[in-house]
């Protein structure tokens, strides 16, 4: 787990012009941000584009902002805004196939072919059900179960109280169960 102090040191160095200090932040957050965005947009290619845009805007934000108390919240908020802008500009977008996670499964050298096929099927089913949820539920479930954030951390990102986040998490899981039962 990155330390608050380490992060503040990196922020300070970036503000002073050391772009190399951005690399550790990128390395720490890139997979989580990508996953967060991926489940909000139609395709992996869109997710890649928007992830890159998120990091670029984060870098610009770090350079311009006076104080950054919670970088994690900042990055996720930027990611959310980037996705909103994406839909505003592109209008209705047709979702591509969920076969993108072929790449993910193919990388698993520890699994047998049968295990890979089962994994892929499971992932497709859950991902499809998750994508059918209301965006708020999907977002909170992603942050909590996939990205391992606490309720308090999620609350700072979505600008709600931890209690409200907990309620939405319960509702989201209930809705997800319903979707999975239908499949």
């Amino acid at each position: 787990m990155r330390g608050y102090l380490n992060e503040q040191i990196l922020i300070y160095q970036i503000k002073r012009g050391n772009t190399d200090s951005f690399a550790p932040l990128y390395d720490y957050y890139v997979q989580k941000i990508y996953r967060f965005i991926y489940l909000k947009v139609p395709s992996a290619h869109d997710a890649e584009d928007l992830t890159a845009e998120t990091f670029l805007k984060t870098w610009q934000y770090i350079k311009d902002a006076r104080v950054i108390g919670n970088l994690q919240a900042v990055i996720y908020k930027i990611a959310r805004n980037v996705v909103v802008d994406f839909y505003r500009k592109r209008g209705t977008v047709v979702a591509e196939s969920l076969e993108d996670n072929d790449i993910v499964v193919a990388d698993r050298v520890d699994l047998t072919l049968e295990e890979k096929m089962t994994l892929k099927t499971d992932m497709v089913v859950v991902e499809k059900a998750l994508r059918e949820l209301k965006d708020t539920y999907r977002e909170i479930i992603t942050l909590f179960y996939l990205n391992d954030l606490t309720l308090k951390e999620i609350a700072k990102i979505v600008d709600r109280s931890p209690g409200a986040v907990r309620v939405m998490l319960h509702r989201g899981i209930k809705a997800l169960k319903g979707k999975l039962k239908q499949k």
Partner: protein
Amino acid sequence: MNGKIVKQLQTLQRITPRTQWQSSCKELLLSQMASQGMGTSRPGVVAGVQVYMKTIASGAYRYTFGSVLAHPSAIAFALLALLFGGSVAAMGSRDSLPGDALYSVKKTSENIQVALAPADQKAELQMKLVEQRLVELDAISKQPISDEEKASKVDALVSDVTFTLSSAGQHLEDIKSTQEPIRVATVANTISQKAVRAEEALTKTKSTLSVEVKKNTAPKVKEAIAQANSTTSKALAVAIEKTAKIDSPSADVKSNIEQRIKKAEEKVAILNETVKIAIDTKTADVKQVAKATQDSKEATDKLETAKKSLEKNDLKMALMKLDESYQLVIDAEDSADALVRIDDSTDTDPPETSDDTHVDEENTSDNQTEQKTEILDENNQNNNNSTEEPK
């Protein structure tokens, strides 16, 4: 019960970006930041070389660029890229098309370039990207792939063109009051010329597509052509506004308008031809023929007014009449499409799809009172709830 769902959800933790993209994106971001000289302590080229050396040492490009770097011209490209503080990844992806492994690297590189470009260069940069998309569109149209795949790629590219044209127009608006009039006029003129060429390229590519692909991509292509037209018109309006501050109207702007008038006249001529064929073959509805004829006549009248205004150097009026006639021509083209369609009973425009449900930023149904009630209800109903975080 929750345990099973949690396990299923956690399989999605395996969703990660491609390793190749992850390292390419990092390299692109860091080298672009460094080469822009925006707050770096090292010269851009040195920074670029250092990033390049680190990345080569990591072996990240062994698979991707092995064949590329085997060719002397590719090595020259790489050296040029480093010299100008560019990115090896970006150069290697230059010829990639939608669906290729490096295409996302190409797009990422472009997005970063636009984001980091000075304000007065963004609009022109966006138009270069439009040109690039049109080159890709032409290449895709010639690929020996299935109609379904082609339609999907064409749709995506054309949407990109529409979006980029709109962005270019927006960036032009942004600099209207912040840059010198002559600079704004120059940029506006360039944009209008390129937008006209974009419209022509789109129309030309549309004609090379198969019937099936054309049918499936018609709405998006139409939207892109309309956007090209709109961007042209807005850019010309800006050019006219800014050159009005100079003594004589710009020859470039005048020439631009003349070309558009000529193009509109060609469209009207084609329309008249179509109406004539429909009348001669007696295949069309009388009302539709009448409408197309009426639109054509009105468009011709407006073009005549535009030409006269241009002769008097009243560029603003010329542009206004030109825009009005263009709209009539577009409406008439729709009527003309209906005239030549004999057995097809489908509409020109497919029904509107419902709004995308992926983003719902306004969760207005939740309010504090409802949440508290819900929390109490859930706590009462679910005996397994505890005060600890549900994990």
